[in-house]
């Protein structure tokens, strides 16, 4: 069974606050009864309102305040219940936070984390469902991570807080109720290391955050049709782990990229360009890319169904693009049997959250 993603984020915060008196948490909801979906629960009473606190609705200035604290040696974590609100602080993030260490001639370290939760479904709509990993990755000086599993979330949060450079921490709302066992191990993942979730020789699926969960499902369905699919969980977007990706592609020669963001000028284009330049001539098919179309995310549950790439649809496109022999109907049946959707509605995750969320 294990622990939920959200409870492991809470544990990562708890341990970071305990181990380093310079760590601070703040953001809208941090000190209220909702406690940012439970992730900051009990931390204010444990560590005091000077270190864990609610903020006025001034995201831009609070983000600049986080920078000032970091320049003075504190390790603040500023958080947004929806990533979309971070755009109010684009000036502080892009012009100041990303550049302060560089501008100062490397005198300053800027150890701060901006945690951004990405919404999806149940009517989130145009301004509550954006995943900004690609455009923050475009800014030199920012690190961007988007962990997929609860244990990834736990380790990457702790390492992001411990990092001396600013980290944008992207967290998908649909992962919050997923569970995983946190086993004591010496194999602690590095902040910028990708992870092979499933090894295979026939096809490489590459994704981030919630997309990794969907890739694993696709891989498991295709394994019933004698296709050994490798799944690469990027974990970090900036910097991204080129070696692990290229090693996998060299082996399988076939690539599918799945993004939780919009398709144009995004993550999939960057990775595809690198694969084409580094492995030109040695892949067998053009790269297949999935992501969100170039329109804002609709609120309507009916419209959102076509907005997100459904697994059934991706199974069909993968088959026709690479000429795989499986019957699409059978694959979709296998998918429904293997991963029966526990929720009656497809605009909410199949475990945990029931709207509104």
């Amino acid at each position: 069974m294990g622990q939920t993603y959200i409870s492991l984020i809470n544990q990562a915060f708890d341990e970071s606050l305990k181990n380093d008196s310079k760590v601070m948490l703040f953001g809208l909801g941090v000190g209220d009864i909702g406690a940012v979906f439970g992730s900051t629960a009990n931390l204010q009473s444990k560590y005091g309102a000077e270190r864990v606190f609610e903020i006025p609705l001034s995201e831009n200035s609070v983000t600049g305040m986080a920078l000032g604290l970091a320049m003075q040696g504190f390790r603040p974590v500023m958080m947004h219940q929806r990533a979309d609100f971070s755009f109010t602080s684009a000036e502080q993030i892009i012009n100041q936070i990303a550049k302060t260490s560089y501008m100062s001639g490397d005198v300053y370290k800027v150890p701060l984390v901006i945690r951004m939760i990405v919404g999806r479904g149940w009517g989130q709509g145009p301004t509550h469902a954006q995943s900004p990993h690609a455009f923050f990755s475009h800014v030199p000086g920012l690190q961007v991570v988007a962990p997929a599993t609860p244990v990834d979330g736990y380790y990457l949060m702790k390492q992001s807080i411990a990092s001396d450079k600013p980290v944008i921490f992207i967290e998908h709302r649909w992962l919050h109720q997923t569970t995983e066992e946190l086993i004591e191990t010496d194999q602690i993942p590095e902040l910028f290391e990708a992870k092979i979730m499933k090894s295979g020789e026939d096809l490489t699926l590459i994704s981030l955050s919630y997309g990794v969960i969907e890739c694993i499902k696709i891989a498991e369905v295709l394994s019933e049709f004698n296709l050994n699919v490798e799944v690469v969980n990027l974990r970090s977007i900036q910097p991204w782990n080129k070696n692990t990706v290229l090693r996998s592609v060299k082996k399988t020669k076939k690539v599918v990229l799945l993004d939780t963001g919009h398709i144009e000028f995004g993550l999939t284009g960057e990775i595809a360009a690198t694969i084409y330049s580094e492995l030109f001539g040695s892949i067998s098919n053009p790269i297949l890319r999935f992501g969100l179309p170039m329109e804002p995310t609709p609120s309507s549950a009916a419209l959102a169904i076509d907005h997100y790439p459904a697994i059934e649809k991706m199974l069909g496109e993968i088959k026709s693009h690479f000429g795989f022999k499986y019957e699409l109907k059978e694959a979709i049946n296998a998918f429904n049997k293997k991963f029966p959707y526990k929720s009656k509605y497809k605009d909410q995750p199949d475990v945990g959250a029931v709207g509104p969320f």
Partner: protein
Amino acid sequence: MNIELINLIKKDYDVENSRIQMFVNLQLIRSVELLISEKYDAQIFRCPVHLSIGQEAIAVGVSINLQLEDKVVSTHRSHAHYIAKGGDLFSMLSELIGSPLGCCKGRGGSMHIFDKSVGFMASVPIVGSSLPISVGIALAEKQSNSENIVVAYIGDAALETGAFYESLNLAALKNLPILIVLEDNGYSTYSNKEVRWPDTKNVRATTEGMGIHYYSGSGDDVDEINTQISEVILNVRNNKPSLVHLDTFRRYEHCGPRLDDNLGYRESEEILSYIKRDPIEILGNKMINLDIISKTLLGDLVNKVNCYVEDTFTDVLRKNENYLKQFEMNY
């Protein structure tokens, strides 16, 4: 204060006298800015510059009340603030020529002067954006139980940004040791306040309404500024966030090395009235009238400061000889 310069003159002048100290600093800033202006066309200082000529008294009157550990955050017009806080002239001039010997290794230039070693935390040229960072720096000081304060310089146009109001709210909410010094020179580039502020705007009411202590005064008489700041700062050290609103005059163009009186966006009467209120003349005359210094010795002091600036610049050119050759174009 520039310790190097003080050491050079202490033999002949009473450097313990605060007016002598302030005069030296005023003249130092003026002399540096005039040097930049004069050499600018030679294409040595290869970055945009916002000169502080006319506005020197505020930086000096504030900084004489600061300790080394107190923090300063500046704007695009950073030179006076940096020099008055005890910044290193060689580092600053090297930064302006883009040299690796600059205080930011040439990465920042005039608009991004950073020097943590003298508590000069940052210069932020995106107007208004310095305030949130200053609030964070002040929160860190409070959280660490230090007695240090943070001075955040802003211009009048910062009052047009959202960050100003957000930051005042945060500073009041957290009772931070922050002193916001509003250098009101009346212009945002070429635009006067008539096109930017409604007639009804009341900075005192706005500031006090946000829970911040408000003081105002003239930004020309460094003696007055010193007296005012020395009182205000006691409150700031006791975690009473405050704003001091000082009227001043930017003598030169907004950005660049020249006078721009010919453009006509400022009435000649306005210009003349300010020239009569030159901070260096005000303090110089006062010192002569109070028999603190003779006219001759004051003239000598001006020369000594000018020589120091010239010598430092020569040193900058000499030590950066190889660097300067790098960007010369060979057509």
